[in-house]
């Protein structure tokens, strides 16, 4: 394999990782601050994609669609926090899993009821369509470069929010000691709704960005949700920095594994079997990565024990 192709695959891995970070950031915030396992996070991703597709189709503007995705996902997040999730903070994780799984079913069938069973159309905007020539003769899709840029900008914004603002101080305090921050007079109920809506908006943004190059359909959120859980387990639950590093690690491992493992298997089992065996091993690569991280750092890379 040539160096240029490898470089292109590295870019693909980074792009995939950045997208995973948008999903994992909300998940890890909600788990870190509220101690809640939210399986319905993938549904918020789907809500974002459907809102973007519907608004883009109606207005013809991709940017309006992105705005609608953020707004719809944040609103849906705030709604389920107030209506359902709020009652679950004090319950154990099994109850949370059960209730948020029910939310997945409600969101999926509700979306099908509104939009039908056929996938929706959402395309990259004209000004981001097609490839751009990078140095070394790499032709890389403009849209994927834009996704990387947006993801990095959001990551920088989140770090600033957590480290440099009053809300960030409250979030960090909430992670450290829930009772104490309430005793100090912070409106913990409002803080929780805000954090949940923020996480939901990030998931919605990821859904809309990805929806333009994938298929906008019911159930699109669940495969990504599993990867997002792997990311926060690797990164350390509750850590935004961990989610960022974990997401890039998972993105690169998955992409490079898919490319390199079948090539490596050719030397072991021959070309015929390598295609199937290599892809089978590649789909396990990120779970092997997760297991290795857990052996050496049981709390994840940036987790507090």
């Amino acid at each position, binding site marked *: *394999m*040539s160096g240029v*192709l490898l470089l*292109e*695959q590295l870019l*693909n891995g980074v*792009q*995939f990782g950045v997208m995973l970070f948008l999903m994992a950031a909300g998940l890890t915030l909600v788990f870190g601050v509220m101690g809640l396992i939210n399986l319905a996070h993938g549904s918020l991703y789907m809500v974002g994609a459907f809102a973007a597709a519907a608004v883009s189709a109606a207005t013809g503007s991709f940017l309006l669609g992105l705005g609608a995705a953020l707004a719809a996902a944040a609103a849906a997040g705030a709604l389920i926090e107030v209506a359902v999730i709020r009652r679950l903070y004090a319950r154990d994780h099994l109850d949370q899993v059960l209730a948020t799984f029910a939310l997945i079913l409600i969101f*999926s*069938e509700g979306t*099908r009821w509104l939009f039908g*069973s*056929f*996938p*929706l*159309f959402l*395309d*990259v905007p004209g000004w981001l*369509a*097609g*490839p751009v020539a990078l140095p070394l003769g790499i*032709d890389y*899709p403009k*849209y*994927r470069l834009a996704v990387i840029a947006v993801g990095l900008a959001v990551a920088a914004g989140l770090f600033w929010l957590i480290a440099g603002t009053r809300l960030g101080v409250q979030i960090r305090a909430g992670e450290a000691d829930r009772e104490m921050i309430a005793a100090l007079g912070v409106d913990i109920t409002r803080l929780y709704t805000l954090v949940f809506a923020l996480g939901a908006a990030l998931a919605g943004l990821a859904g809309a960005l*990805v929806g*333009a*190059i*994938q*298929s*906008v*359909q*019911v*159930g*699109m959120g669940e*495969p990504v949700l599993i990867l997002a859980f792997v990311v926060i387990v690797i990164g350390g639950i509750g850590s935004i920095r961990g989610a960022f590093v974990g997401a890039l690690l998972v993105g690169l491992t998955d*992409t490079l594994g*898919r*490319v390199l493992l*079948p090539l490596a298997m050719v030397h072991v089992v021959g070309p015929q079997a390598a*295609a*199937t065996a*290599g*892809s*089978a091993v*590649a*789909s396990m690569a990120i779970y092997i990565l997760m297991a290795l991280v857990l052996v050496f750092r049981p709390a994840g890379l940036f987790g507090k024990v």
Partner: protein
Amino acid sequence: MTRTGWRILGAAALALGLMQPVGAAGENLKVGMITTLSGGGAGLGIDVRDGFLLAVKQAEAPIEVVIEDDQRKPDIAVQLADKLIQSDKVDVMTGIIFSNLAMAVIPSAVAQGKIYLSPNAGPSQLAGAGCHPNYFNVAWQNDNLHEAAGAYANSAGHTNTFILAPNYPAGQDALTGFKRFYEGELAGELYTALGQTDYAAEIAQIRASGADSVFFFLPGGMGISFLKQYADSGVDMPVIGPAFSFDQGILQAVGDAALGVRNTSQWSGDLDNPVNAAFVESFEAEYGRLPSLYASQGFDTANLLISAMGKADIADLDAFRAALKEADFDSTRGAFRFNTNQHPVQDIYVREVIRDGDVFTNRIVATALRERGDAYAAECPME
């Protein structure tokens, strides 16, 4: 509850009782339809169901259809089959979309003496040594459309094709089917993860491989993702695929990225015969959308059943099977007959994706294979 309350309840129960068609139950033929109506892949099941019901309605046939949703889960499909056979006592079963569900349900259903008419799945096991007198496939054997794609690649002058499919039985069958007829070199052969949605890594490999064309089998959302990303990557070598990634339900979601792509199918909306023209028109009038190949398969399945009901009684299973095997119905595909293994012998066409006004659809540009049966019929002991 008050006295009046009871009285109202009683009246309601009586009214509901009267609504049942009196005496019709004994004469109706009862069809149990297990199909996918929720979750990923629901669009396929909905089209099969709607096509089937349209044919029943048009013929005003005395058929009662019990419809169940398998949610694309084999365990649920098996439970539903038990319920339909034991409690609903259906005579005929149909509807299953996906081959893994078909393999979980059909062998047991036909062994219990039920007729099964497959409107979609055609796993090779049931076409070869595992064929059964009670099992009829009205769609195709799974390999057929891929074989046609291989044959078309030859006639289009492709000599260095890159092929990819998901790593599961139907994906492996697809690449095997393609290679059965394809005579050129392979620029590369890739298996992707089932349900994968990002193909950046694969597209970079295709670009670097020096291929002159691409064949892919990625059903449903996977195909939408691949086509959009492929179009956006700037790679512009021709793409060939089976109709599963280019059916009417999917094309609108792919948009311009699919324009001009060649795909193989046993059916197309512009297939020139009066039955098909009437079908397309009445389907659109009834449901407000264009039919897909799945809808045509559901429609043909119901018409096959109706043709057999006119010749024999379901109580005489041997006569009913013989009537089915004659396939004496007007198919939307034109010529249609059953092979010895009770799978179709039919023409398979090459279609091109076009835009007709606002709607993306297909039109036929060539015939890939004529009167094609399948590769497994010889292993079937039936005559």
